[in-house]
């Protein structure tokens, strides 16, 4: 098993089943990539970088929603 921490919650994947990139992870989760930015181990990744940002076991990933209401 491989583990990611996603928004503070551990998420387990069978070996080889972890999405390879942030874009793939978001697709997996059904999250609209234009509605969030990601923070991977403390570093912000904007939407433009989702396709080329690799996802690896042990990472801590936060998906931070854009909230425009007031």
């Amino acid at each position, binding site marked *: 098993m491989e583990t990611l921490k996603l928004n503070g919650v551990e998420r387990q994947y069978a070996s080889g089943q972890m999405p390879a990139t942030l874009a793939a992870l978001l697709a997996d989760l059904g999250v609209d990539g*234009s509605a969030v930015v990601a923070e991977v181990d403390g570093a912000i990744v904007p939407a433009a970088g989702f396709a080329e940002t690799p996802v690896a076991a042990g990472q801590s990933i936060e998906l931070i929603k854009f909230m425009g*209401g007031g």
Partner: protein
Amino acid sequence: MPLTDEQIERYQRNIILKEIGAAGQEKLRSSKVLIVGVGGLGSPAALYLAAAGVGTIGLVDGDAVELSNLQRQVIHDTADVGRRKVESAQARMHALNPDVTVRTYDTWAQADSLGSIVREYDFVIDAVDNFATKFLINDVCCADRVPFCHAGILEFEGQLMTVLPGRTACYRCVFAAPPADPHGPIGVLGVLPGVIGALQATEAIKHLLALGDLLTDTLLSYHALTMQFRRLRVTCNPKCPACGCSHRPV
């Protein structure tokens, strides 16, 4: 000028806090806070800051009160529908606390005018309802080095962070550029902006009185359905064009 007997009575519960005292109350009276947006977030922020005795409160909003606002914009009354929001809010704040000077700017926050307004204040509350203006407030406050508290809401969720420009991560450090605004109104649980706007007022008072720990380099998120608050550490983006926090001394 020392506090009057009436002020000592009005602010008794502030003053008996040893962290505030009469000196803190006088500090609040001499402080100026600008609230941009007098809607869901701005309503509780304006009411609590007026009640607390913040001496000068500026309100920026170019809109009129609509019936559909009243589900969450609790500073306005049914009889205010159609009235300018800044006037409606000013009247309620004066009724609550005649000590407070309320300055009104019946206009939309714009790049060419917001800077000159912001510079007159000690702290700014971002209570607007669109991404473009949230980024504008961030950029203007960063350029003029005016501390502010960002907040946003969406459906059942809210988030906020406080920015000390040049010293802590700004909104643009986290959210590099605005996404498209949604088409049409978004749903929002009416009490949600009450929670988040009250937290923004808390941050303003803490900053004015140098109390406690601000939500700097920290995005606080709140989910009303799970009742979870989460603090997320955020760091300055060295490439951020707005805040220059990468140049801060370490």
